[in-house]
């Protein structure tokens, strides 16, 4: 076999490996854009939903289970997050969330679903309220801090 043919064979094998990896790489990781259906799937699969709009926009309506982390607070707040967890990130139209995804990618987050059409493209129900749930918490007349934790 001529050396030139061998080179072409090697290059061909490399190309097949690269294409194959991109086609069949695990669905759980990576950074990708999703539409409303993809966002719904991500929520159902347990993605942490991050709304990077302002608190006012958030209160008017947000995706189920979304946590409000305005874009200007994202870098600080996300410093303590699990970088291997899956996050669904959105804003109103996809502009601010694109910046958020770039920032998270640079910070080392490995699994991000970017709802790049924004909440305007969401067709499902919205939650309203100051945080992820409008459910009131019973208090004894003083403010309360609730910590949910595990020992393991």
């Amino acid at each position: 076999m001529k050396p030139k043919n061998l080179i072409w064979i090697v290059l061909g094998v490399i190309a097949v490996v690269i294409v194959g990896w991109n086609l069949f790489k695990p669905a759980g990781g990576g950074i990708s854009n999703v539409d409303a259906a993809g966002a719904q799937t991500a929520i159902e699969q347990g993605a942490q939903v991050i709304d990077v709009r302002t608190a006012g926009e958030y209160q008017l309506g947000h995706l189920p289970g979304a946590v409000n982390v305005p874009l200007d607070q994202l870098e600080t707040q996300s410093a303590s997050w699990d970088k291997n967890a899956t996050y669904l990130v959105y804003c109103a139209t996809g502009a601010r969330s694109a910046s958020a995804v770039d920032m998270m990618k640079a910070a080392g987050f490995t699994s991000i679903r970017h709802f790049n059409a924004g909440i305007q493209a969401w067709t499902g129900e919205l939650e309203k309220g100051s945080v992820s749930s409008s459910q009131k918490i019973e208090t004894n007349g003083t403010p309360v801090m609730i910590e949910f934790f595990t020992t393991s």
Partner: protein
Amino acid sequence: MEPVVDGLEKKYEGKVEFRRLNVESDQAAISLANSLGITGVPTFIFVNSDGVQAGQIIGSTSEAKMVETLDSLK
């Protein structure tokens, strides 16, 4: 986070009630976490005295951020 929360609990004694719920062993805690859409631990929920939720922090955080949020409670 535990030493930080321990310290803050003492600092805010009488001002903010600290409820620390183990979602591994406490069924009531699990139910509350589910109803609030909690998907990971630790998660901190901050509630004003009227029962309205005022903030949420997911994951380990800084003491400064906790203090800032606790001070904002009404």
